[in-house]
């Protein structure tokens, strides 16, 4: 296989002697929290806009109330989602530094959309929420703000997932050179379908919990609507997902898919699908019920989160299987590079130590050491004039030293001479030497 891998960072990985399994678990848990918030962000903003439109069309106030209620989870989850996105990246970038940065560089500058696109989305979602009552009489405009925010947030996962698919498959570094080459692959496409469907399912379950909370706080009508709608969100989005999820792992490169087939991770998406199926029937049996007991809420939430956790673990499995070989290759290459480099550096230091001290009263040595010869030669014009020409123009050293000490411009063409880091004594030695070259 044609591997193209960067060297590892030649500093010890600060694991503090804690076994790597700890970091695996840490990575999975922080990712689970992050992705849960992102699911709720995508779903609740979608819900807010949909019910906002339904409220405006049907003139039924309870849709509008539900829509406004959904802007609270949007605000919380956009903040928490961004925040918890940092932790998984921190863990990944300390353990798999080279792969992560290579992927980021390959999808640049488009990857910066996750920063600037996010800022745009945040600001629009705040504008949408905080102008809700002020713009009551211009609903069309208000809904348009929400829609643009929604489109902005929907445009982020394709970018991020492209980066993620690239770094998870280090063999692709050799032939994928920009974001489109990885975004327009079946893998990214199917993972995106899976992502958005899970976001809708997850938000459905969230709405059941949120609706029950509203009912318990006395907002019976809106709460019942939320539970009713939440069930539908889940039941419309889950079936396709159930079919897609078990296939996802087979869509990685043959090397990774084969490795996964020989590991326990390949079963996890099947189990995750099964949990969603159970949840589907559980909700179907409660099709006409808009009031859930806290035990029922707990059951549906647990099934949903367990399914996401299993998918997150499967995702970790991809890293385990995929990175084993390239990490080994990378470690070997880094070791031989660093050994050659350090040996050469030691040799260089030894040479420096044994080299005779330079005689700085010798003007030629001084001119070399101070970098004069970077721009001047004795008898040819380079960047600056030839020293011979300088000697021809001036009569005394006092005319030259100010140009060396303070820089000068306009005397020999348009390129200025910058200030030189020399003492007045050194400038004097240099000026006298230049004059002597006449």
């Amino acid at each position: 296989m044609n591997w193209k891998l960067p060297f590892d960072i030649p500093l010890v990985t600060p694991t503090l002697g804690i076994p790597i399994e700890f970091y695996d678990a840490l990575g999975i848990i922080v990712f689970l929290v992050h992705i849960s918030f992102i699911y709720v962000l995508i779903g609740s903003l979608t819900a807010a806009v949909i019910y906002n439109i339904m409220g405006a069309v049907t003139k039924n106030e309870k849709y509008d109330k539900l829509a406004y209620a959904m802007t609270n989870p949007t605000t919380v989850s956009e903040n928490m989602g961004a925040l918890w996105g940092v932790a998984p990246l921190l863990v990944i970038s300390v353990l798999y530094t080279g792969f992560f940065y290579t992927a980021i560089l390959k999808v640049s500058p488009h990857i910066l959309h996750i920063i600037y696109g996010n800022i745009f989305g945040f600001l629009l979602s705040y504008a949408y929420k905080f102008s809700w009552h002020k713009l009551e009489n211009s609903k069309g405009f208000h809904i348009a703000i929400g829609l643009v925010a929604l489109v902005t947030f929907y445009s982020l996962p394709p970018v991020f997932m492209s980066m993620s698919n690239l770094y998870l498959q280090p063999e692709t570094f050799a032939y994928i050179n920009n974001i489109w080459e990885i975004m327009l692959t079946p893998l990214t496409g199917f993972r995106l379908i899976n992502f958005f469907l899970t976001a809708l399912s997850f938000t459905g379950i969230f709405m059941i919990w949120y609706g029950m909370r509203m009912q318990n706080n006395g907002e019976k009508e809106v709460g019942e609507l939320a539970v009713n709608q939440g069930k539908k969100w889940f039941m419309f989005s889950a079936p396709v997902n159930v079919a897609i999820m078990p296939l996802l792992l087979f869509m990685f490169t043959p090397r990774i898919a084969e490795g996964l087939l020989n590991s326990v991770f390949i079963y996890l998406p099947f189990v995750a699908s099964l949990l969603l199926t159970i949840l589907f029937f559980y909700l179907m049996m409660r099709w006409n019920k808009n009031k859930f007991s806290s035990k029922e809420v707990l059951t549906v939430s647990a099934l949903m989160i367990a399914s996401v956790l299993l998918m997150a673990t499967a995702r970790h499995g991809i890293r385990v299987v995929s990175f084993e070989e390239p990490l080994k290759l990378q470690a070997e290459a880094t070791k031989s590079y660093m050994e050659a480099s350090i040996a050469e550096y030691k040799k260089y230091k030894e040479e420096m130590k044994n080299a005779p001290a330079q005689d700085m009263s010798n003007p030629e040595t001084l001119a070399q050491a101070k970098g004069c010869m970077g721009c001047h030669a004795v008898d040819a014009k380079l960047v600056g004039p030839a020293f011979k020409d300088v000697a021809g123009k001036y009569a005394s050293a006092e005319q030259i030293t100010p140009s060396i000490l303070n820089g000068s411009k306009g005397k020999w063409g348009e390129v200025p001479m910058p200030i030189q880091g020399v003492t007045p004594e050194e400038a004097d030695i240099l000026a006298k030497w230049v004059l002597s070259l006449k």
Partner: protein
Amino acid sequence: MFDFPIFEMPVIGQRMLMAINAIIHVFVSHGGAVGGSIVLAALAIWANKRNDMNAYNMTYKILMVFFIITTSIGALTGIGMWIHANILSPNAIGGLIRVFFWKWFIEWIVFNFEVILLLVWFMTWKKHADSPQGRARSIKFGVSYAVASWLTMVIITAILAFMLTPNFAGQPWVDPEVFPGKVDYNNALFNPTWGPSLAFRTTSAIAFAAALAIMWTWIIATFSKNPDDMDAKPRVIKFLAGIMLIMVPVSAVLGYWYLSIIPDAAKAMIPTAMMTRAFEDKFDVMYMITIGIGATVLITTIIAYFAPKRMPYVAASMMVLAFLAFWGYEERVREFIRKPYIIYNYMYSNGIRATDVPYLNKVGILKHAVFIDEDKKVLNADKSNIVEVGHSIFQIECRICHTDNGINGLKKLTKGWSQEAIRARLNNLPGGGTPYMPPFVGTDADKDALAAYLHSLNKEGVIK
């Protein structure tokens, strides 16, 4: 740098790409989050203690502005710093993460508290505003938010200070001759400029935040046309100006302390850092700018303190503008004086470790450039691809600071130079006039190729 894929930002260049994000982040994080949290918590305490409900409600309105800006622009450009650093210098940020992983992790935990406390403080403010007990509770959230906010600055300042002065008490933070490098984490953390830079940043951030709050008080009171806001305006502005009257002189003294600890080589870079190369000898202009910024802050603060009711909008916005100029300059100078290094004495600005130089001088800079195609890496027998090879070298060694034909573009910088002149210049980097440039790394053949490429930039008929 040579071992990562090349990403070249056209026209504005890598540096400007990062600088845009960095400057926005500094403005918002210092003014809105760290300073803002402290100033607004103080304002809320003060208003509540005097039972001044108009001032207390005004605090909420300013908080809303700060909330919107810090959680969106502030937080995301913070993450953006990291992503931009990945693009700019993966070796440097990769090294920093190996050294500071746990500190960053702790910062992330503190950052959680910061965001959650801000969300709670802001979203429950109105619920708690009606009773004295409620307000006391609300203020507790505000104070905790301020503490968490400041702690995030404590940690990130340590990392910034490390890049300038990585060694503590003369002890190296790592032995570069050992692989893999064992990092002395305490030395890296307790580096000499951490304390002074933190003290200076904290106090000037508080002053900046107070200035921002004054401007927003002015805007909110004027545009809300609410008599309660108009009533609170002079008192709030006077209180905030009082904070500035204390913090501005204190931060000036602390800034002087910080300056005194910076290494001499870095200090010598300050004039160039402030004025760019073209004006580096114009000390008078430099002093004028510094004095201008200082005087603007002082005069507007005095106006705000003694005539808060009549303070014109021009004064309020000039105050903020002066701080923006100040932070812009401060950040530029801090980033610039570290040159030619990105991690002092360890890694050059272009991501090449100082200890790698002798080896790369022997084997050539392109030997380990895995992501560069062979035909742009190895010279043909007839040297027909010398410009392409030179371009690859440019991408590795120069692109971090230079573009070909945009900001700091080499086309303009080498205009009128012969190929021999360029070649001689490469031979003598950094040279006397440009101490901020790293040395050229690579063989003589590499220098020939780069000189050929740079010369081609100004040749007619060569499409670049």
